[in-house]
């Protein structure tokens, strides 16, 4: 008797093992960066891929959490866990406020509203004193967690992996819960979801707030990893990047955002010294190519190919 595992379960197990072994080969800080952005993109995908809402201001949740965590750890000297929680919760609350305004419009207007509101918060960060304006917050202490000294990259790495896996599992559970099914119903046919008696606005807002909270968790973790928070985190460029990561990896797929963010972060890391400001041009070109010819993304295309092969085997 051979126990049967679904490909997804095997994928999860393989992914976790890879993550645990990876620091032997790859610089851990780079993987932590990828994990932070992967979490950010997964949170974003919950909204775009599973609810059909394109938020063009998600960086603001990343940035807000990054600043709050930085401030709480550096100035108030709270323990690391409290700092992470504070950043995450503030991002969630901000998501609730922005979400409740943005869901009043649909489609293309939703994207413009989220972009404009996030720009407003960006200007607030630029002017507020606690963010350090153009300089950002520097020298945030990592502190320790459950007796682990996080100043050591090795220790921090496993904490970040734990945070990522937990959040990923939460997103996975959400997608496959009845709540997630309703979100998909809204994505596919909003009028029908309304006619079935669902309070669509409430579900959209919940999805938005949850997505913002998890984006916040990514930002809070990022501050602890890099020991700084800057305006870049909250800039609309970052909002565009997370759209690109999700689109490239495959929106509406569980692993897509992880793949997309790994590719983009690695590309940026590799290219930054070599081509300078042309990085933006390359990112833009990837955008254009994805939209024109590659709308399912890497993972989406992979799944489609897999299904076609299965179909051929079954003689269809």
């Amino acid at each position: 008797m051979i126990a049967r595992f679904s490909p997804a379960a095997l994928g999860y197990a393989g992914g976790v093992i890879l993550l645990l072994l990876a620091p032997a080969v790859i610089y851990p800080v780079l993987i932590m960066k990828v994990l932070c952005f992967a979490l950010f993109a997964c949170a974003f995908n919950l909204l775009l891929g599973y609810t059909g809402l394109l938020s063009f201001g998600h960086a603001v949740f990343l940035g807000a959490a990054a600043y709050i965590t930085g401030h709480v750890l550096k100035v108030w000297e709270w323990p690391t866990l409290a700092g992470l929680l504070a950043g995450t919760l503030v991002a969630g609350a901000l998501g609730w406020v922005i979400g409740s305004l943005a869901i009043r419009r649909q489609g293309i207007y939703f994207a413009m509203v989220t972009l404009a509101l996030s720009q407003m918060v960006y200007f607030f960060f630029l002017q507020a004193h606690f963010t350090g304006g153009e300089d950002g917050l520097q020298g945030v202490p990592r502190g320790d967690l459950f007796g682990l000294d996080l100043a050591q990259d090795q220790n921090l790495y496993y904490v970040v992996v734990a945070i990522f896996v937990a959040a990923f599992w939460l997103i996975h559970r959400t997608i496959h819960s009845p709540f997630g099914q309703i979100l998909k119903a809204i994505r596919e046919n909003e009028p029908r979801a309304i006619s079935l008696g669902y309070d669509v606005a409430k579900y959209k807002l919940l999805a938005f707030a949850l997505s913002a909270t998890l984006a916040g968790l990514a930002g809070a973790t990022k501050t602890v990893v890099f020991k700084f928070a800057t305006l870049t985190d909250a800039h609309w460029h970052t909002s565009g990047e997370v759209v690109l990561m999700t689109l490239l990896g495959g929106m509406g797929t569980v692993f897509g955002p992880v793949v997309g963010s790994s590719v983009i972060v690695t590309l940026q890391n590799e290219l930054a010294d070599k081509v300078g400001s042309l990085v933006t041009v390359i990112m833009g070109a990837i955008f254009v190519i994805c939209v024109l010819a590659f709308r399912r993304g890497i993972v989406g295309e992979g799944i489609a190919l897999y299904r076609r092969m299965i179909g051929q085997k079954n003689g269809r």
Partner: protein
Amino acid sequence: MTDFFGVPLPALFGQLVLGLVNGSFYAVLSLGLAVIFGMLNIINFAHGALYMMGAMLAWILLEYLGLGYWWSLLLAPVGVGAIGIVIERALLQWLYKLDHLYGLLLTFGLALIIEGFFRHLYGVAGQPYSIPDELAGAINLGFMFLPKYRAWIIVASLTVCLGTWFMIEKTRLGAYLRAATENPALTQAFGINVPLMVMLTYGFGVGLAGFAGVLAAPATQPGPLMGSNLIITVFAVVVIGGMGSILGSVFTGLGLGLIEGLAKVFYPEISATVVFIIMAIILMFRPAGLFGREK
């Protein structure tokens, strides 16, 4: 009476004129966005980048060909419009049957490409571009000095906006355009070349952005980053006004520019965000926008 709530009147009027100048740019840009959206169902994220391109073309024409402001005012919008036509034929035309979001994403990518390209060539700093001699100096209105160039920006923008309104609402070409916006298939059946009109509409819309860019060149130092923040404010203007009416977007643009000017005088801290705050308030009480119809 020389002040108003403790603000000297000349300073107040100066800021109001500046507000109208900004409002003129909002009006021209949101008008272009609305015209393009009506025909193509695409929100042109590249609008800010093409506005920047207009200004940079003006500078390039001067720097490399020695062509002055008035030539640029004619040539740069045509150049930007031509590039727009290439963009429409090469890229956008494949998206019309897809979800609107893809249009936004593709033009966002385009904006990154255009901006990154100019940044690569010319760096982030603004380039010098001076006001043409005919429009240098200021007029004494008695209660304030009105810089001629600022007055020109307002007059030229409003003329272009009204001209566009006239063309769309009052001419035969405009009637075709409105028909094609309302029902492309039926319009095509009447023998009108709709794809051609779509192409020209996009060219015209981004040409407007290029025109605004040339107007802006002497007022702000033209540089690769001048369009990217502006376009987000223009998006807010579009959300506030709605895209249903041409005169509506002109009115909204000018009004918001004025409010921004007032904010600079009375409460400078919120001058950068006041448009977004108004947008939030509008969303609360009139989600479809001032002149919009909820589809």
